[in-house]
């Protein structure tokens, strides 16, 4: 079995029961001038993950392994947006890339560099976690291990890893393929995953995973 040098210890996975999860690499979060930046965030902090993730995707697809993408967003009539969430943010309002975080809008879709390939499932989720109110768990029938990438580290990536971990999936989070607007949360978010003997999973760099896939 491939074994990746990881924290808190080696991470072994069977490629026939492993999927790559790419979380919320959407224009609204990543493009300059978009929703993320309008909140005062530095989008370059997130964009650092794009290049390593694109490289990993190429290797992963060449090996014929499954990829699942997620997008956070809501119905145009906002019927699936909790009132407390609506009150806190700009969701549904007009932005430079269409209505913010609304399904079907340009900004809601995944950035061109990481566009889903034909046949790769895209899971639309109304919350931070990719398991709540989605069919992700059904899509993962036969999958035991998840390679987790995407944004943002301490919000949607963390929530999804916590959900996956409670469901018994073995999660490897790739430090250079996840991103936070805040360097401090990137660091602490990754530390929390590997704390207490790996309470939520493992953390590694994509180079060490790629090495194992190409072996």
């Amino acid at each position, binding site marked *: 079995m491939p074994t990746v040098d990881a924290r808190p*210890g080696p991470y072994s996975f069977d490629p026939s029961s492993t999927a790559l999860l790419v979380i919320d690499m959407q224009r609204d979060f990543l493009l300059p001038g978009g929703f993320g930046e309008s*909140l005062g965030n530095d989008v370059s902090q997130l964009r650092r993950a794009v290049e390593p993730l694109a490289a990993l995707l190429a290797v992963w697809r060449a090996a014929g392994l499954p990829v699942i993408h997620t997008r956070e967003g809501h119905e145009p009539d906002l019927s699936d947006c*909790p*009132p*407390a*969430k609506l*009150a*806190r*943010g700009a969701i549904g309002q007009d932005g430079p890339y269409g209505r913010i975080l609304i399904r079907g809008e340009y900004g809601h879709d995944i950035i061109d560099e990481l566009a889903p390939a034909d046949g790769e499932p895209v899971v639309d989720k*109304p*919350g*931070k*976690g990719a398991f*709540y*109110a989605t069919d992700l768990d059904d899509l993962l029938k036969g999958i035991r291990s998840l390679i987790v990438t995407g944004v943002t580290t*301490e*919000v949607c990536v*963390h*929530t999804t890893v*916590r*959900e996956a*971990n*409670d*469901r*018994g999936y*073995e999660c490897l989070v790739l430090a250079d393929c996840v991103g936070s607007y*805040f360097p*401090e*949360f990137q660091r*602490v978010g990754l*530390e*929390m995953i590997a*704390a*207490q*003997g*790996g*309470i*939520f999973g493992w953390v590694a760099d994509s180079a060490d995973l790629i090495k194992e896939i190409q072996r």
Partner: protein
Amino acid sequence: MTATIGPVKAAPYLWPYDGSVPVDRVALLCIDWQTDFCGPGGYVETMGYDIALTRAGLPATARLLAHARALGVLVIHTREGHDPDLSDLPANKRWRSAQIGAEIGGPGPCGRILIKGEPGWEIVPEVAPVAGEVVVDKPGKGAFYATNLDLVLRTRGITHLILTGITTDVCVHTTMREANDRGYECLILSDCTGATDPANHTAALHMVTMQGGVFGCVATSDDVIAATEV
């Protein structure tokens, strides 16, 4: 007249978002105040952590519990644990606990570690449930996954949650994230929580306050008590 809570002096906004809430729509969550996590001889102490850190929130939580009970607020306790035959214990969770020297299901000073019915799995006396309070048993860190918590909250008409318990960055945060995705308006109390690593406690609370309150708000038990209108 029904008593109300709010606006609470919280960060990053006055909680709740809708101004104030009648107490019959609020639940006080007491997460995993079990001997295994904060008592002598429990799981956390067996792993080598200082239980003074996880016990730190007990006095404030006990005081808030008395306040909530007097107001008639719904109190819900949770317990993390597994069936004695370990049928609901994911293989990797068992493996990791063994790696750190405190295997779930193995023998410990307080009985089998994190197993339902064992002394270590019980809630500590300072904040023990009283008759009529809901106790939710959960196999994971989150209190919503594989439990009836959502059903109980909806059946009782609960829309707002006040969170206490341990540990801040693990079970409390996971539950708050699950609740937030489900549309509950959440408030976590800094003096009624605690973590095995103080830095993770602080960071977890800070994370809540970012982006306009991405998971809700942070306050203290005094802030909640002060914002109660009877």
